[in-house]
């Protein structure tokens, strides 16, 4: 755990208390059971926004607290631990696009509403099932945006889409010219193909040539933070289980082969935490962001992948049942692994950033 300041510790403790008490995994089960395509609890999100979590990276003048990404990551990590379904990550990422690239009017119009939870935003970049921001066909002419975005996260609840077109990022409100097709994935969260057919679009004209990359890096570190929480929880649950479950007259935790596997996972988790926290800190410092975010998501992918598999295996048969939580982490893990950069894509980017 990074060394935190007092504000950050308070924020984390508050998030931990709330998720444990008010948003345990049973809350996600309720969301799943409801079958609503937007797949989150509006009341819970309103509460989260009231606690200030929707505005952690939004400047104070626009209704946020401007605590930065490390702080946002602390909250997201706690939400990841209990699989709390909410648009918080995507809303934060979309808000960051406006913070970085919006005009004063755009900021004034949207940021206070995104910080308060009154409106929800998300990011729409990829046009195929694998992350590839170099392949964008969506285009804008005369302020009308057209194109189809694939597997947009939290699309159903979104009032505002930050959309990547060939020449930059645009704001598009839901409504005319915006059509959703639900794509139900294993994580049972909100995903949709979003077709924009001449939808009214406003460009985020500031933020420079790297705006899309900058925003995606924020998506990467926050997604990695969610995965960190998930990995930590799977590890903790598995360790607890091994300490309780008796086989061959011994608790499983006493078997050396399992001890060594847990030691491996513990070391992996340490690496994952270092990489994710460094990614969040880099965003706040504004230095080496691309590289740090790439490392953060790559390590999150690697460790979460193994952690989910080992979590199931070490839980044995009961881990295979819908009644236990560990399967949910697996089913969410792979969706996040494939979002905003698969391992292979991230390694390619790392090589480029390193000049080889």
């Amino acid at each position, binding site marked *: 755990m990074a060394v935190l300041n007092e504000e950050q510790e308070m924020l984390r403790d508050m998030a931990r208390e709330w998720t444990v008490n008010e948003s345990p995994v049973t809350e996600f089960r309720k969301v799943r059971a409801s079958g609503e395509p937007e797949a989150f609890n509006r009341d819970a999100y309103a509460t989260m926004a009231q606690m200030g979590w929707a505005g952690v990276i939004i400047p104070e003048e626009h209704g946020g607290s401007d605590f930065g990404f490390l702080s946002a990551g602390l909250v997201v990590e706690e939400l990841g631990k209990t699989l709390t379904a909410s648009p918080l990550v995507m809303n934060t990422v979309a808000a960051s696009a406006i913070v970085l690239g919006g005009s004063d009017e755009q900021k004034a119009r949207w940021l206070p509403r995104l910080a308060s939870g009154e409106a929800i935003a998300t990011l729409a970049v990829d046009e195929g099932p694998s992350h590839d921001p170099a392949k964008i066909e969506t285009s804008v002419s005369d302020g009308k945006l057209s194109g189809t975005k694939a597997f947009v996260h939290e699309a159903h609840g979104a009032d505002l889409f930050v959309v990547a077109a060939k020449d930059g990022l645009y704001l598009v409100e839901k409504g005319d010219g915006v059509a959703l097709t639900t794509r139900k994935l294993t994580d049972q969260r909100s995903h949709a193909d979003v077709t924009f057919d001449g939808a009214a679009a406003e460009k985020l004209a500031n933020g420079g040539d790297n705006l899309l990359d900058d925003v995606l890096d924020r998506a990467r570190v926050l997604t990695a933070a969610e995965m960190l929480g998930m990995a930590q929880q799977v590890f903790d649950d598995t360790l607890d289980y091994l300490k309780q479950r008796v086989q061959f007259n011994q608790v499983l935790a006493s078997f050396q082969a399992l001890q060594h596997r847990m030691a491996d996972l513990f070391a992996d988790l340490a690496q994952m935490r270092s990489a994710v926290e460094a990614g969040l800190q880099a965003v706040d410092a504004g230095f080496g962001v691309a590289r740090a975010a790439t490392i953060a998501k790559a390590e999150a992918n690697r460790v979460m992948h193994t952690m989910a598999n080992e979590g199931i295996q070490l839980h044995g048969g009961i881990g295979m049942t819908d009644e236990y939580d560990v399967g949910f982490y697996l089913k969410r893990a*792979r969706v996040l692994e494939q979002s905003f950069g698969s391992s292979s894509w991230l390694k390619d980017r790392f090589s480029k950033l390193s000049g080889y």
Partner: protein
Amino acid sequence: MATQIEPATQTDEDAFRAEVQQFLADNFPAELKGQSNALAGVDGPTNETPAQTKWREAVGARGWGTPTWPKEYGGGGLTKAQAKIIDQEFAKAGAYNPIGGMGVMMFGPTLLEYGNEAQKQEHIPPICRGEIRWCQGYSEPNAGSDLANLQTFAEDKGDHYLVNGQKTWTSGGQWADKCFAIVRTDKSDKHKGISFMLIDMDTPGVEVRPITMISGTSPFCETFFTDVKVPKENLVGEEGQGWTIGKRLLQHERTNISGGGSLARLMGQSLGDIAKKYQPTGADGELADAVLRDKIADFEIRWNSFLLTARRAMEESKAAGGVSEISSVLKKLGTKLSQERSELLIEIRGLQGLGWEGDGFSDGELGAVRAWLFGKATTIYGGSTEIQNNIIAKRVLGMLDHQ
């Protein structure tokens, strides 16, 4: 001397092949071509169509669904070579083997080895005809990998046992007619106190509750026994012999899980060919993503050498006789590789490979996702990978126990 030879071997291969072809022409309903039916697996109920019933009855009557089992109990009484011809001709005609399930894969071979004459006469023929579905009553909530810890107790009541306890992971328990179970008949000895018995699932006091898996399916049940009367004649072997019989049955299970049953099905589908449908290709038709291509080749090479290992084990065990000691190795490798394959499919397809439901995904894509999730169980059931590692280390390599 010639008159001593078994009837089946009097027919030469070509003649037998012709016989099978004729049988198919006479009996296989064209509408079933390319289908399969659920009795062959462990998941899902059977709601047979009339054509399916007709086909099952035709194959069952000849005993060709269990071709090498003895004719006297309803099997085909055929040689392995002839069984292979049946496989080949069925495959050519797009016909499935309608006789399957746990009765064929595990219970039948075990009963043929350990059952008495009356038991074989009673239970084997309905398996050969595909009329009866069996389920496995092994695991309990506190006896998973550590089966010897089982608590379900069968009390001796003179002409019957009174069974009380709970089983879990009962495959297809909600659809099964009968259950082969290991139960405790003596509480004083962990291993020797175990007996193997057969329980009618419609006996009063038997209750099943399906378990929903992470894949969304419910192929297993919890099964509760409350004062269930089991006639003495349903004991297989001697009292206390259940551990030996039960382990033997697991060897059959292991061989099946490791791929014995599914090798043929998987062999044809190269991951590379699938990838070419989802990923861009270069000038020579090669996958443009060299890293993915390398990963796929890495997998396919190891998968091939696994298939070669399975074949080698078969040849060696044929020479040595009986089930090979290498079955633990095959189980461990085969299940791990199948899981890797499922993970690679996701990598190839991206989010398109993680669909849960909906028109946006093909049946093949959705099936692969469910198989990926359900496949996580293959390294857990039938003796987890950890148990196989213990078996390899201790029994095969002679490494001492850690106590």
